């Protein structure tokens, strides 16, 4: 059994709301697994249970073979959590923040110093280690936030939307360091609502929406769910929903959804059928302002599976 994380039938509700509903997945040794879903999909709730912060309503979590619950000290040793919101003391320096959490992980004095130096290098804060975290840029704070999760060399690193609210440059460096970590053999559970990040980083992706895992697989597997279809994106002037409904009757169209002022159709052999599509939009009373045809990506997969856009 080489799965570092096994979740089976995870459930958690807040009142009436089923934030996570019967979610099962596995993360293998050295694998980077992405949970891709829009805001409120249940990503943070799911990983909070995996990290032992939140009790489950049902289901089982095994980390490196040990059962994870909020009281499971042994299982928590295997997990490094990087919360979505920064969780650092701004009035302490980077080194002090790291030292504090190293103590909480019960690392001894000698081991702490070496490991902290190493982590500071990895997150690129070695030369600013003595400055208070409150004075750091947003990207530096994020990197420190990640560094804390790496300290005790966990088997499983959980990153919850680590690039949200980060400038493009820092974002890139964060993604690069996650790639490096994966190369080093650590297992990563990565949540995001950015399709590009999931595509770039993750070996396998679980698509999550409204608490349910709606699909799972490699990028290639997920995209092939749509089949050998093309994506036609039309910018329309008028009622996009009505236009999308009208397009469904066109021959070869698999699915047709409105996304803002656009209509997105998945269809076979789009090239020969564009005139029919444009005509259908016309009959709905709307008119087409622009057309784009391309190969499908995860964004389209999500739309196809849920009828919703990944981003608002």
């Amino acid at each position, binding site marked *: 059994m080489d799965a570092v994380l096994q979740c089976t039938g995870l459930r958690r509700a807040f009142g009436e709301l089923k934030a996570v509903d019967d979610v099962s997945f596995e993360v293998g040794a050295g694998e980077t697994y992405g949970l891709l879903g829009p805001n409120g999909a249940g990503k943070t709730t799911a990983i*909070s249970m995996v990290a032992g*912060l*939140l009790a489950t309503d049902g289901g089982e979590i095994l980390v490196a073979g040990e059962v994870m619950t909020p009281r499971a*000290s042994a299982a*928590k040793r295997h997990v490094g959590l990087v919360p979505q919101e920064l*969780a650092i003391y701004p009035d302490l320096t980077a080194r002090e923040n790291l030292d504090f959490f190293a103590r909480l*992980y*019960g690392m001894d004095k000698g081991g702490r110093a070496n490991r902290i130096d190493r982590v500071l290098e990895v997150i690129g804060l070695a030369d600013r280690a003595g400055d208070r975290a409150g004075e750091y840029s947003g990207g530096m704070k994020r990197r420190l936030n990640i560094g804390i999760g790496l300290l005790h060399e966990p088997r499983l690193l959980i990153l919850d939307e680590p690039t949200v609210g980060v400038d493009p440059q820092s974002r890139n460096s964060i993604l690069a360091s996650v790639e490096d970590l994966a190369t080093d053999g650590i297992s990563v559970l990565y949540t995001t609502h950015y399709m590009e990040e999931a595509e770039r980083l993750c070996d396998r992706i679980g698509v999550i929406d409204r608490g349910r895992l709606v699909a799972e697989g490699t990028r290639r597997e997920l995209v092939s769910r749509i089949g050998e279809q093309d994506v036609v994106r039309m910018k329309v002037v008028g009622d996009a929903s009505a236009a999308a409904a009208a397009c469904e009757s066109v021959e070869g169209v698999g699915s047709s959804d409105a996304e803002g002022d656009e209509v997105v159709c998945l269809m076979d052999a789009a090239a020969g059928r564009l005139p029919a599509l444009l005509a259908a939009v016309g009959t709905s009373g709307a008119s087409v302002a622009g057309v784009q045809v391309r190969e499908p990506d995860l964004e389209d997969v999500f739309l196809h599976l849920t009828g919703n856009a990944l981003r608002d």
Partner: protein
Amino acid sequence: MSPAVGPAVGTVLAISRVELIRMLRERSNLFFVFVLPLLLVVFIGLQFGGTAGTPVGVVGDGAATDELVELLDEQGGVNVTRVDDADELEDLVSRGNLGGGVVVGEGYGAALAAAEPFTIGFVARPDSASMSLRTVVEAAVAEHAAASQAARHVADVTGLEASTLVDLADDVRGEVATVTVTAAEVGGDALAEEFAGLGQFDLGASGQLFLFVFLTSLAGSAALIQTRQYGVAARMMSTPAPTPVVLAGLAGGRLAVALFQALYIIVVTTVGFDVDWGDPLATGVLVLLFCVVAAAAGMLLGSVARNDAQASGAGVGIALVAAALGGSMMPLEFFPEGMRQIALLTPHGWANTAMAEIVRRDGGVADVAVELGVLAAIAVVLTALATVTLRRAIVR
């Protein structure tokens, strides 16, 4: 003991340590924790310990006046200066340069020797501080005149020569403890008696100790809220540290802050202001218990307040009101009876009562057992309450 105890203690200390470091780093704390307590110790010292350190002018010449000046000086830190004449004295007093003045007219020495009645003038502004000053002066004068008065009595009864008796009485006086004579003579003013022999800053110091320990603990509860707001508290729960250990660490942090503030005030006032803190054991236990109460109150506030601004605002308000009611701003002895009962609704009331016993009446642990017991009970209840609410606030 289970093998987990060692690491658990390490974790508790790690969390407590960080909370203390953060308190010391907060810049606005520097003034409130380090400077303000000392300012207030001095201020209260001048206000209520006033008789002790008040500058008093004395007009008069001769050996008898010198003796009186010496006695006045011994009255517990009254600061005596010699002034040339009565006009200058009145001037200095009315301008506030002197707290009061004593005018010893011609023939004081002769009157004492002959055991004749003699009037000494007292000059002061019409305020309450002057009243206590006057009792101090009266005490000194009474002590000085004790031999003479005794001689007068004996002379009246026996018909012997008064001046001979004065000499005799003076000889005897050297062998009798003068303190007893003073106490007997001053007996009329209980307040003055209560505070006699106190150093100038003793009074302010203990009151301020409790005020600031409580204030710093409650206002410092903002740091606990930040620990929650920063997400660090939640993150601690993702480490192997068990919840009770994290809670103990956060509680320990509050206690460390309270103890730090207490130790700072005790050390600095002992070294810098020569304050007498009484029996070390009794004071130690009292201060420790009070710190636990303050820390628990801070933890409770830090668990129920919504944000750090609310916590420090409410904290300062509660701390000042409790301190005022509990006799930390003005000695409880100055309170009317009803207010003294109300004072006992605050931990300060009990602590200040105990401190008065320890410092002014040389009380030991046994003498303040009731106060210590009450504070211990408050500490237990508040700590339990605070632990439950904090647990709720950080465990989901």
